């Protein structure tokens, strides 16, 4: 399998707001790679460095040290984003546009030929179940519909890699289910997905591999089955143990309390 994402010894520092400290290390020595066709769960508590790592991959933040590539192209090169789709957490799209216009706008940025773009818009709006609302301005949309419009924009270029930052955050159970179904469908189509979420049950169901980062460093990485077998507990308990909430985790079989 080809490597889609490669992160090597990544370090990101920010100017610190704390007195007496010049910099804050958001990511420290992170190395990982994601293979083609995988759904890779990117886990960690708030402030762990997940979004910073994603921001590096998307070219929003320049790494202090180390490097990252997408399809072998450095993330600092804008062509690295040609085969990429990105769904950010809680975004309110241009409310004066209709989903059709939104997709047409983003499609133009990928230089998709007009006829192909129109066909693609029809397909995606059907996939995210927004075909009936295609002429309505986004300002009239519910949160779930906005999130599906967001997913639609991430798919406009038929990307080989999708970066989804908490795609089900803030959605009701029906909205979550719809988004999950779409992700499952994309997985079946062979797309590579980097997926960040706090919904560990969801991650356990969907992801092939996961990594857990905490305080900017990689703490665990492997398939969900590997982690569960190694720690002899479910993914949520693995997560709590790795980030230092050992007291919240029941003892391992055999009487050893962790």
């Amino acid at each position, binding site marked *: 399998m080809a490597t889609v994402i490669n992160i090597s010894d990544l370090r990101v520092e*920010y100017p610190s707001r704390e007195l007496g400290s010049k910099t804050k290390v958001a990511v420290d020595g992170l190395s990982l790679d994601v293979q083609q066709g995988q759904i890779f769960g990117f886990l960690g508590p708030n402030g762990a460095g997940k979004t910073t790592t994603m*921001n590096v991959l*998307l*070219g*929003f*933040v320049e790494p202090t040290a180390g490097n990252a590539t997408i399809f072998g192209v450095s993330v600092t090169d*804008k*062509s690295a*984003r*040609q085969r*990429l*789709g*990105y*769904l*950010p957490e*809680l*975004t*309110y*799209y*241009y*409310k*004066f*546009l209709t989903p059709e*216009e939104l997709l047409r*706008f*983003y499609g*133009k*940025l*990928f*230089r998709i030929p007009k006829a192909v773009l129109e066909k693609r818009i029809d397909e995606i709006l059907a996939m995210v179940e927004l075909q009936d609302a295609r002429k309505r*301005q986004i300002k009239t949309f519910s949160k779930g519909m906005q999130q599906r419009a*967001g997913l639609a*924009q*991430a798919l406009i*270029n038929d990307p080989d890699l999708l*970066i989804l930052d908490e795609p089900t955050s803030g959605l009701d159970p029906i909205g979550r289910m719809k988004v999950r179904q779409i992700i499952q469908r994309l997985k079946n189509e062979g797309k590579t997905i980097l997926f960040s979420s706090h919904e560990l049950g969801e991650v356990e169901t969907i992801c092939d591999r996961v990594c857990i980062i905490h305080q900017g460093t990689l703490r665990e990485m492997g398939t969900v089955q590997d982690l569960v077998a190694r720690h002899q507990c479910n993914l949520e308990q693995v997560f709590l143990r790795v980030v230092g909430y050992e007291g919240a985790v029941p003892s391992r079989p055999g009487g050893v309390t962790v």
Partner: protein
Amino acid sequence: MNNILAVSSVVMREMYRRKDFYVLLILTVLITLILGSVNLFNDSNIVRYLKEICLLLIWISSLVIAITTSARQIPAERESRTIFPLLAKPVSRTEVLLGKFLGCWLASGIALVCFYLFFGIISAARESGWPLGSYLQAVTLHWFMLAIVIAIALLGSLVFAAPSSNNTICFIVIAGILLIGRHLHKVAVGMEQPSRGILTLLYFLLPQLGWFDVRERITHNWPPLDVGPFFLALAYALVTASVFLFAASWVFNRKRLQ
């Protein structure tokens, strides 16, 4: 250019779907029509006052449209977080900025044409002639002046955090340049050093927006400017706007997006 045009089309769509432009046009029409309907002091030259007031309203409205539209562009993208999916596409920050500039400038140009059409109809109704050459020159100079204003407002939106503070600062700066800036060198002549030097330097550093104001020529039906100074003013506007856009691009490319 494809990306710049795509971004500018969204800005223009936003302008015609928002109500600001329509409100300002209706206000200008109403005020001018009300003033035109009363024959103050039985003055036969009342049409000159009417033209002067109508042109003043057009200038104020155009500055309001240009500054408020451009000042909110990038802060609104950041606030609604649409900047993230936008920059995750194969588009550079400079292209986004230039697209915003072009969109605001074209939208302001369309608004100007509507305003000046109304002005032309009013003056044609009160005077027998319709000096098309003078009007075209006035619209063109006005539009190129707005290019400088929009570039300043875009730069301001990247320097000042809140759009409201940027709006206020831009209005004060532009009004200051228009009202006082053009007389600074005359004031400097009567001053002692170093104030004289500082004021003279300031006069040459500030954009000469007064060069684009040919309202007096229109009001008094004077002939249009010669071709030489006219094209020199247009070239000056393009160079000055480019300097501010270059500065804005420099700031934007170094801005951390979080």
